[in-house]
């Protein structure tokens, strides 16, 4: 689904990613973890074609970025740590707008369906501005899956959520992933990442330093490895 080879991204003179290789097979749920500033968000922004790579090859479902980004964006669903929603519109209007941008068919039905998945049906006609952070994030996930994307990218989805809201989000993430979609999530929360993902990749020094499949290590070992890789 995702194939990244030798990816380099520099902001000005400062390299963030230095020859990164990264593969994700179809149906996998991969969590990319790493300390702040390691380049997790940068990696995701390149995968979403919001940033262009300085060097290296990036393919999504066989489509080369940034050249074929238009086609790639169709199969991508993105949930960022910002909600990407309009505060002065209701949930219904927000989803309707993005549905039209993506050309979703049977939009009314799909909006109802998505709202019930993210458990926001009761707030359908309320302004997004008045939502709590957790509700905004749930609606943002609704926006991300609205057009039935094959590949979902979550950028620090737990940012700014209280523990209850974060647990609810986890349920949602698992449900979304179980529908057979490929998911890539960045996080700085190692524990959550380890519980959710089928594979945890540790990003350090601008590269994927380690890649751990679920069940390979227990939580303590994973934590220790993480600190060894990122601190050492």
């Amino acid at each position, binding site marked *: 689904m995702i194939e990244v080879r030798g990816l380099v991204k520099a902001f*000005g003179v400062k390299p963030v990613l230095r020859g990164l290789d990264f593969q994700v097979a179809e149906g996998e749920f991969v969590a990319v973890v790493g300390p702040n500033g390691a380049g997790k968000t940068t990696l995701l922004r390149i995968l979403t074609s919001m940033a262009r790579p300085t060097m290296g090859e990036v393919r999504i479902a066989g489509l080369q970025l940034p050249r074929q980004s238009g086609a790639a964006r169709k199969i991508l669903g993105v949930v960022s740590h910002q909600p990407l929603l309009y505060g002065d519109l209701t949930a219904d209007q927000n989803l309707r707008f993005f549905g039209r941008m993506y050309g979703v068919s049977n939009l009314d039905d799909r909006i109802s369906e998505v709202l019930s998945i993210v458990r926001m049906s009761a707030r359908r006609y309320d302004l997004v501005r008045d939502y709590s952070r957790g509700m905004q994030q749930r609606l943002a996930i609704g926006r991300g899956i609205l057009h039935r994307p094959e590949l979902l990218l979550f950028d620090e989805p737990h940012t700014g959520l209280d523990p209850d809201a974060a647990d609810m989000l986890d349920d949602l993430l698992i449900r979304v992933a179980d529908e057979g979609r490929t998911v890539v999530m960045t996080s700085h929360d190692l524990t959550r990442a380890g519980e959710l993902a089928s594979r945890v990749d540790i990003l350090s020094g601008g590269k994927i330093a380690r890649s751990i499949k679920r069940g390979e290590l227990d939580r303590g070992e994973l934590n220790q490895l993480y600190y060894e890789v990122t601190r050492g």
Partner: protein
Amino acid sequence: MEAAPRNLKILTGITIGLFVLALYMVFIYAPREAVMGDVQRVFYFHVASGWVGAVAFLVTAIAGGVYLAKRDRKWDRVAVASVEIGVVFTFINIASGSIWARPIWNTWWTWDPRLVTATIMLLLYVAYLMLRQGIDDPDRRARFGSVYGIVAFVSVPITFVSIRIFRTIHPVIIGSGDPAAEGAFDMTPRMLQAFMFSLLTFTFIYATLLWYRIRLGRLSEEVEERKMEMMSV
């Protein structure tokens, strides 16, 4: 940074030589103008400065286009360097024109199309520099600079045309709308030679300054780079 390369040293030498010669031609070789007197001597460098301004902004627009196509930062360095020099010489052009106008048209300022266009051009490129100042990410700065450099350059001829039509329709209150009408003079061959030579000299001055300014930009980026490294250590 290494010392100036040999070609730049040679160019600098030529430019200084040309400049000394140009001063000689403007002050001694060219005759005193029969009507306006000495102040007409300002004309040679006045026009040459305007020429440098126009060339500089053209170079900025082209360098901006090349940057957007190739994404090589060196083109952006050319673009900023050229704007800076263009702003300096456009200012010289306007100020010297104003000084020339005072004894000839009896006013420091006339709403002549060329003068107004030059002034708006100056404002455009001051805005360009302010835009760049407001952006921290160097790649974005380069991209926005390139776009604005092109937009600004495209707007200049339209501005000129609009002011030209404006002047011809409107009654002219002070002086003449067109300096060719009043304050015009027949150039003697020596004047023409001094004029052409000034244009050549200022083109060389532009090229030399551009080269030095590009090197300055590169050095500044190197320093930034080093500072980044220091901070990450």
